[in-house]
């Protein structure tokens, strides 16, 4: 017994965590990683580990810290690619290999020290940090006090700016922290002129840059939701008619025809013409699944091919599914996110009235944006059917052997891009990976993947606005990220917008050795004995 105990103690005391820490000296382009083994015993947080390195291994390691309890926002850094405050970053939650880098989108002074100056350059003026407290509503105010006061929740830590796909200084975007502060000023002006704040947020560098990817909300250590503030402010601007002409035109299209393309509503299901079977109209014929196709998969020529491919796979598998045909209108996810709440509610009302006519058990959709609003927002208006992404449906069919992938793509190497509205909003990251695994292809992950994915730049209505601003587009940065992987054959996507965005981005970046494909295309290649191909069918 004694020997065993001794061994356990030794193992315990010698267990180490391997840290790769970014180093650079001021003004030199000498960035590199230094490696340290840190004893886990006695180091609860990443900050403990970094201070252990300072005291025991390398005195010159520079980092910022102050309060040690997530109240000052000084020790922000990237931990395995994710923004964290080191003082509350538990080592135990990060495994034995940890990569530590300074915040992105801010200049690095040295090592892990970000220069916070640019963060403040973008804060609205005035920049009050004391607010009237709205907590403890039961409390009576003390005599002589107009109200309780408190410090603003924002720690000014820069984590949201680092996580923002549009946060690079070159874009000029004022960033989520400054916009959240502007949102607070509109709620509680404290000396600010409302019109000044509105004209500031309405600039090209203001609220319209946001892709609504939700990374800022997930990075914030103080529970602030910059994105909610951004959408609320867009609503005010839209109400005033103060919006990008291109966007205004798109919203008019949606209002007139129920789709963002401005095509006649009657042509919505024209993509089915190339199929050698007929898809039932769920409004007149009961089906198991109602396919809510979405605007891009219905109208974009390139994505229409993918829609036909999916239709064929499902048809061949004997799945009972139908469409709403011209009855389907845009689900309104992005209409809501650009701040057009009234139009969103009209779309919900229309779609729900058509859905009520139809007979089905569950909805699936090809579009993660539609999925998000149908699954999370339509229930508040009365939708009571489950909503799935097509990858969830296909995983079920594959696992039950209804779809058989018997021509494995052995030797094929792919990477997969998680769409924000699947991964960040709806935690759907396993289903697409399970499908890729089922094809026999080898999945090579990009550094940013799963719930920590990187935005394609199209969300939140950005795809309807001019994106020719300064700075490299997020979709192009993402293609470059995939280029760092070794010998990839396919860049796989599962969102119609992604197919459009990344096909274009790959052309712009140029010299790309992989092909951008929809997950359905990969699946089709792994299906056995397929004599026909939807893609090959005449459009």
């Amino acid at each position, binding site marked *: 017994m004694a020997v065993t105990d001794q061994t356990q103690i030794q193992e315990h005391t010698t267990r180490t965590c391997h840290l790769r820490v970014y180093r650079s*000296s*001021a*003004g030199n382009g000498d960035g590199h990683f230094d490696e340290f083994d840190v004893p886990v015993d006695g180091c*609860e947080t990443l900050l403990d580990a970094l201070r252990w390195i300072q*005291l025991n291994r390398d*005195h*010159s*390691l*520079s*980092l*910022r*810290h*102050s*309060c*040690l*309890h*997530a*109240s*000052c926002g*000084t020790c922000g850094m990237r931990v395995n690619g994710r923004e964290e405050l080191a*003082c*509350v970053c538990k080592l135990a939650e990060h495994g034995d290999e940890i990569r530590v880098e300074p915040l992105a989108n801010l200049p690095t*002074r*040295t*090592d892990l*020290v970000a*220069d*916070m*100056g*640019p*963060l*403040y*350059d973008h*804060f609205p003026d005035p*920049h*009050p*940090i*004391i607010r009237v*407290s709205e*907590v*403890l509503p*039961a*409390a*009576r*105010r*003390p005599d002589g*006090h107009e109200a*309780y*006061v*408190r*410090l*603003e*929740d924002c*720690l*000014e830590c820069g984590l949201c700016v680092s996580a923002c796909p549009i946060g690079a200084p070159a874009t000029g975007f004022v960033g989520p922290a400054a916009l959240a502060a502007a949102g607070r000023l509109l709620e509680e002006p404290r000396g600010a002129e409302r019109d000044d704040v509105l004209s500031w947020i309405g600039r090209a560098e203001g609220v319209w840059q946001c892709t609504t990817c939700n990374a800022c909300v997930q990075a914030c250590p*103080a*529970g602030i939701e910059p994105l909610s503030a951004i959408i609320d402010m867009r609503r005010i601007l839209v109400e005033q008619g103060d919006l990008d002409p291109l966007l205004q035109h798109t919203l008019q299209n949606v209002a007139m025809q129920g789709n963002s393309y401005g095509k006649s509503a009657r042509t919505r299901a024209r993509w089915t013409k190339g199929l050698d079977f007929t898809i039932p109209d769920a409004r007149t014929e009961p089906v198991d699944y109602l396919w809510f196709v979405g605007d891009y998969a219905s109208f974009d020529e390139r994505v229409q091919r993918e829609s036909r491919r999916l239709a064929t796979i499902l048809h061949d598998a004997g799945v009972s599914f139908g469409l709403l045909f011209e009855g389907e209108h845009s689900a309104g996810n992005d209409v809501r996110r650009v701040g057009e709440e009234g139009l969103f509610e009209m779309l919900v009302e229309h779609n729900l009235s058509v859905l009520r006519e139809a007979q089905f058990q569950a909805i699936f959709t090809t579009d993660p944006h539609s999925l998000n609003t149908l699954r999370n927002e339509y229930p508040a208006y009365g939708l009571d059917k489950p909503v799935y992404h097509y990858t969830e449906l296909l995983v079920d069919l594959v696992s039950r052997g209804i779809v058989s992938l018997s021509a494995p793509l052995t030797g094929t190497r792919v990477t997969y891009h998680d769409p924000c509205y699947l991964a960040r909003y709806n935690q759907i990251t396993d289903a697409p990976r399970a499908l890729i695994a089922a094809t026999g292809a080898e999945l090579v992950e990009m550094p940013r993947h799963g719930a920590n994915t990187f935005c394609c730049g199209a969300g939140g209505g950005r795809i309807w606005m001019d994106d020719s601003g300064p700075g490299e587009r997020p979709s192009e940065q993402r293609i470059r990220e995939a280029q760092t992987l070794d010998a990839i054959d396919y860049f796989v996507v599962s969102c119609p917008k992604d197919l459009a965005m990344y096909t274009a981005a790959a052309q712009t970046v140029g010299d790309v050795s992989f092909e951008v494909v929809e997950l359905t295309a990969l699946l089709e290649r792994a299906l056995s004995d397929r004599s026909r191909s939807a893609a090959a069918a005449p459009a």
Partner: protein
Amino acid sequence: MSTQHDAHVLIIGGGGTGGALAHDLSLRGLRVTLVERGELTSGTTGRHHGMLHSGARYSVGDHESAVECIEENMILRRICPGSLELNDGLFIAVEDEDLEYLEPLLEGCEASGIPAQQLTPRQALALEPNLNPQLKAAVRIPDGSMDAMRLALRFFATAQHNGAHIRPFTEVEGLLVHDHLVSGAVVRDHATGTEDEIRADLVVNATGPWSEKIAAMAGVDVPIRPSPGVLLALRGRLCNMVINRMHKSGDGDIILPQRALSVVGTSSWVVEDPDDLPVPADHVARMYSEGAKLIPAVAHSEQRAAWSAARPLVGSRGEADSGRELSRTFKTFDHKETDGLEGFVTITGGKGTTLRGMAELCSDVVCRKLDIDEPCRTRDTVLLDHAAYYAAAA
């Protein structure tokens, strides 16, 4: 602004004390360089409870500290508008024996000039509904919360604006000592990796619990005990006022709101090395159990963080074991007087609330030594916003 003086003062230590000192000396027209081995406020300053003391906590037994606190409390309200949560504080009695402290507290506050108002338990609960409903007495005093890091940063921002050269990530490797005179320091700039000498007419050691280490570089000793305390940050704002236990200062007897957190503190013991501060699990447990006596919801609140901060208490070895017995006042040591060493001053002790006052007295000593006749101007100079520090540094 005062006239410019050629005298150059090197301040070692980028905490609240060093920042306030750099601000004071810059306003008096001196040339100031401040070096800090890490980021500003990375030592004790950023980690303290964040309490703007009324002085009531010290009014029974430490009259000197109590008077300093209420004076500085009122000055900070003037010069740091917008950086303080000014919701007042309560002392509450939760056990019968706490009531024995009521009269001494009221008398102590009166003697120290601290406005104190006795409330009935019902009145206290109306102000702070989460208090222990069994409370037996309450006294309202002008405590508050501060942003420990950003309040200090405003001093740095203003000092920098007035010409002070603030150098974080710059570590002192040695002092230039010849013939009983300190004439500067050898520093390493961690950002560039370079070493250089900073010559100064006077060097001030403002390194708090690290004072002994810096003083040792000049071959002298200062009677400073690093006395850590454990603090516990809980998720959720359980109170708006500062809640104090009505008894002699003890463990876990203050709960302070801070943004969306509630911070319970603290404990007290004495260590040798301020760089090596454990967070003993039994101290954290005591913060929970003692804090819950003030606000029962503490017991079920989720821990956001627990940490230790080292106070720089003035006192000799063997004088005190727990640190509780040591005064919270501050002291300037002119090493010419204590050790026959010219050009070197240590300022230490004190607390966040009194940082400006400490700097004033220390600046008086510095100016006297340098034969400069300039008055202190910090009592009425409103400090720049903390963001000005970064804007100028960029």
